[in-house]
């Protein structure tokens, strides 16, 4: 599991590469929460284009980050969701709190970054 990120104004764009399960979830969590110590970050976009596997541990990671960011009045968006992971998002009902954007541009625009 490789995690990387960049900042676009008040949006943290996080890219995940590899397999996200219970074992690797901890690294992802710690990586993002460390970045979130920066109080100017309000929104998160998760780019999961290169995520080759995810189970329900990923849902837990997303809900946890959503809780932090929603306290700051921000949003959590997700892009490049494959059909298998989409199915997990669907059954878990996570789309009630996290938005699946068509691409990064759309996500950033929706978060007020142009």
């Amino acid at each position: 599991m490789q995690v990387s990120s960049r900042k676009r104004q008040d949006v943290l764009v996080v890219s995940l590469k590899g397999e996200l399960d219970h074992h690797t979830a901890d690294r992802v969590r710690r990586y993002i929460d460390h970045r979130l110590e920066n109080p100017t970050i309000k929104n998160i976009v998760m780019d999961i284009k290169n995520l080759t596997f995810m189970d329900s541990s990923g849902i837990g990671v997303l809900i946890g980050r959503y809780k932090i960011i929603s306290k700051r009045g921000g949003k959590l968006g997700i892009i490049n969701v494959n059909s298998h992971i989409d199915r997990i998002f669907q059954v878990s009902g996570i789309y009630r709190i996290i938005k699946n954007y068509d691409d990064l541009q759309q996500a950033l625009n929706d978060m007020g970054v142009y």
Partner: protein
Amino acid sequence: MEKLNEMHIKFLSKSSNESFARVTAAAFASQMDPTLEEITDIKTAVSEAVTNAIIHGYEDKMGYVEIGAYIYPGKLVMEIIDRGKGIADIEKARQPLYTSKPELERSGMGFTVMETFMDKVEVTSGVNQGTRVKMIKYIGSSTEKMGR
């Protein structure tokens, strides 16, 4: 129905073995000529059950997780077994969003995901005796699936 092949694995309840369990299950199932999607379904369900054995069954203790896999014509049966603390109320445990470990950021969606990707999920458990999750997946042509 004729059993075509069979395998058993047993490994320590370490989280680093979660990916090992997935790869092993996929490698065994690949003999059935599944689609890539079916392979991912199997990997996901196995990942959920093995993770549960490690974090809920054994919690912080070390124990053995066992997987049994059986291939029948068009049908894969997988059992994930732990000898850990067991489940008192299986019906409650299987409900979507129920988790006994919210502090670990568990989502309570494990059983729901297993049910989504497998054709049948059966749970037997005894308090302090352990848990056995039996999952069935039909693989192959739709005619075979209809004849199940």
